[in-house]
């Protein structure tokens, strides 16, 4: 819990696996006229081997864009991504194959992330085939072993995605991501499409793999309780920026940024007696447009405590308490 895993600046980190420095992604808005969507703005963090960093925020806050820039599904506009010390930001697509061996992704929607025309066996074997270094016998053996590890049987191997339940599909997605035994897995909302009773099954599975293989996870979700449960450190994003980052549970017990505070207040309390007494208001208003983000602090349009300075001067991420960074003028 009080791990030293994540650091906003990487100066003193211990064997960083993933270093993200000033990652930025802008793309032209539909309808053109030189309007730019500021999807991701100057995001930096570090993740060490075997640890989990959770990223939370509202839809459109850039958390998925961040993961997609890291695995190079998207090409970042600026900034650097270092994996095991190697700068992978500008490696041409052709030479990404050895990088992908170390880094895989689990997607939100297991209905669309699996090819409907491939059997489960082929889906899980595809990363091995792409690497071109396994015989067909090895491939078959590894796929069988992997499927049983994620709780599926031999008989599932010949099935197609539509023949599986949502939970089983996500297990296939996890098997595909883990078959190369990567060091880092980026999980983009891996449980939000699943039923409540199935979510915990998938989370336990991910945790077991982490302990066994020493995996690191970048875990993206909007369920703040689940993120707290799985993560060693948690980052909060708002409109493309990282506004708070904390090692350990500090973020939940002592949130510093007004946005984090509002987000936490918005979570329904699963106890009617406590919920009745709760007078916290949560967040008001809607997220602003990422095309013309507000000047200064991007959150000032919804912030109950915004001062004059917040409207003009963008706050920088600074260490407000040991292992706890926030970007707010008021802290």
């Amino acid at each position: 819990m009080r791990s030293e895993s994540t650091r906003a600046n990487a100066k003193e980190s211990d064997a960083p696996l993933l270093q993200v420095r000033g990652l930025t992604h802008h793309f032209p808005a539909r309808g053109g006229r030189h309007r730019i969507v500021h999807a991701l703005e100057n995001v930096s963090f570090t993740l060490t081997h075997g640890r989990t960093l959770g990223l939370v925020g509202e839809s459109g806050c850039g958390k998925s864009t961040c993961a997609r820039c890291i695995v190079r599904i998207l090409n970042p506009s600026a900034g650097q991504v270092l994996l095991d010390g190697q700068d992978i930001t500008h490696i041409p697509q052709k030479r990404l194959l050895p990088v992908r061996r170390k880094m895989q992704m689990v997607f939100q929607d297991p209905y669309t992330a699996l090819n409907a025309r491939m059997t489960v066996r082929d889906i899980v074997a595809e990363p091995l085939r792409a690497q071109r270094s396994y015989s067909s016998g090895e491939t078959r053996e590894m796929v069988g072993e992997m499927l049983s590890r994620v709780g599926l049987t031999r008989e599932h191997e010949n099935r197609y995605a539509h023949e599986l339940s949502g939970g089983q599909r996500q297990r296939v997605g996890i098997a595909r991501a883990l078959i190369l035994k990567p060091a880092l897995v980026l999980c983009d909302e891996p449980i939000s499409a699943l039923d409540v009773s199935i979510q915990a099954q998938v989370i336990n599975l991910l945790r077991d793999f982490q302990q066994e293989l020493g995996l690191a996870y970048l875990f993206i979700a909007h369920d703040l309780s689940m993120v707290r449960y799985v993560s060693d450190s948690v980052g909060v994003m708002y409109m493309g920026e990282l506004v708070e980052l904390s090692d350990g549970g500090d973020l939940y017990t002592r949130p510093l940024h007004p946005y984090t505070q509002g987000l936490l207040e918005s979570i329904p309390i699963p106890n009617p007696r406590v919920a009745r007494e709760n007078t916290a208001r949560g967040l008001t208003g809607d997220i602003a447009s990422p095309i013309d983000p507000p000047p200064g602090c991007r959150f000032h349009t919804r912030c109950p405590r915004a001062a004059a300075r917040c409207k003009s001067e963008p706050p920088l991420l600074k260490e407000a308490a040991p292992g706890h960074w926030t970007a707010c003028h008021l802290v």
Partner: protein
Amino acid sequence: MTMQYKNYDVSHNPGGDEPLLTIRNLRTSFFTGAGEIAAVRGVSLTVRRGECLGVVGESGSGKSVTFLSALRLLAPAGRVMGGEIRFQGRDLLNMRLKEMREVRGARIAMIFQDPLSSLNPLIPIGKQVDEMLWAHEKNLTARQRKDKTLELLTKAHIPEAERRYGSYPHEFSGGMRQRVMIAMALACKPDLLVADEPTTALDVSIQNQILRLIKSLQSEMGMGVAFITHDLGVIAQMCTRVSVLYGGLVMEDAAADDLFDRPLHPYTEGLLTSMPSLMQDRSIRLSPIPGSPPDMSAPPSGCPFAPRCAHARNICVSQMPPTYTYADGRQSRCWLHSHDAPAFDNPYRDIRGTAVPDEEAL
């Protein structure tokens, strides 16, 4: 939560305690190429005036189909096979279609999970709210309708209603669209609001705003609400009473406080323990419900939850449990409440045998 009852005065409601909506032993099936799918297999529930009933269940549990049956809005493949649905004493299932149309929208209003598919993309939102009034309140003039529409939009917390009147659904965010749906739903001051997962597609921050809005409008207008959701946190925040559905059956029915204090069905307990709380100890593994929900094209003959239940015995697999009713009105459909259920590995051993089983199941 007595606040919600403050507008409720027995003298204005002859019939006193008669529930707003009563569903008795409803059975609904869908007939597809793959045969009959028994989506609802004997659901009984009630929504009383001024209360918010939470209807919890996973996908396929029959929670939406139950209310679509009540409103006679089933897809063509769906058919009500049996049971009774009464709303304010009137039989909804045998009502003439013309009367049904007057009930829908005016007396019973609905909001759904995805407001974008419920709104017409080609018509300005103000016009769509206006249309509700045009359809159900024929005596209003165009001017009065417009004024009332603006009032409703403001009530649903849409800022600058006047300016937004002419905007189209695509110009709104998800939360704002849901507010438009709420304005439409409330246009005719309904007695019952059916809210089917209205916040599932929204972020927690916006969900919180919408839940607060529904709750304040509910106590202001004194309507009954049936809140369908899979999220127990939302139930805790919104509801006074809860029906838990699984496999097309009501597994448990209780006051919300009691349900969260002590669930009386292993499925409810499984739901409560499988989600981490904000204070969950990270070193403790989550205890998920093993397995997956039943295939409703071939539902198990016994308790639908038996294959996933840690306490299941032989009888659970072979025979459908009756619904046991306790003196305080709590209900649970589980053999473990039976007077001859063993004490060993029985979470209800202290109270077993004190509840009355219903007869039709026996």
